[in-house]
């Protein structure tokens, strides 16, 4: 129980929860497996970004979350 996955904006509604704790380490495949299939599908869209330990990843598939890291799933920000 050492990596916290945080769902933001509309993804929070889709996940039905604010966050989820999963064992460390966590890579991209592990992340996709940890969330519901419809969320995994959204994650694969180029419009959803992933932050790890306070940094937005340039290549989210290179995710390597370690013990204590927070992984945030960032849908596109709102316009208006």
């Amino acid at each position, binding site marked *: 129980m050492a990596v916290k996955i*945080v769902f*933001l*904006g*509309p993804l929070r*509604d889709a996940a039905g929860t604010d966050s989820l704790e999963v064992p460390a380490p966590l890579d991209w495949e592990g992340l996709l497996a940890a969330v519901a299939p419809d969320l995994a599908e959204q994650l694969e869209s180029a*419009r959803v970004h992933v*932050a790890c330990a*306070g940094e*937005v990843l340039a290549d989210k598939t290179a995710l390597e979350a370690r013990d204590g890291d*927070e992984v*945030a799933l*960032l*849908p*596109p*920000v*709102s*316009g*208006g």
Partner: protein
Amino acid sequence: MATRSRCSLRSAVARLVLERPADVRLLEKGLSVGEALAAFNAAHERAGAIASFLGKVRPGEDVKALELTHYEPLTLPGMEALAEQALERFALDGVLAWHRVGTMQPGEGIVLVAAAARHRRAAFDAVDFLMDHLKSAAWFWKRERRGNHSDGGWHWIEPRDDDHAALARWTGDET
């Protein structure tokens, strides 16, 4: 801009202490534009030009409230980095970037940006630059509550394509 030192100045007018050269805030409560700009003006007495922008919750279309969520580990550092970019990019004396989070009513301020410079064009361009980047890159998600309690509900506001167009205006000379 390595010679710029950070300091704060108490404004006699507004009794607000602003950080210089950049005052960046996330506010949980109301945003007083008059007080903020009076303090910013006083903090940059030697600047010949001050430009500002205030974005407010627009009424209409049955909107009862707006909720703005953010991701704290990214939002404030992101806004601070953006303010630094503006200070390096334009010939500025200082900038102010305040953003509300939480639930707001129509007519309330969401975002206030100001830039002080020697010349008008730099102040203007800095405010424009900050607004283009804040809205598109600062990791805010908005939803609106529409209609009455019985039949209404919260609706997420979708990303807008022209925010990307606005950002594209700045990338040409960033290389």
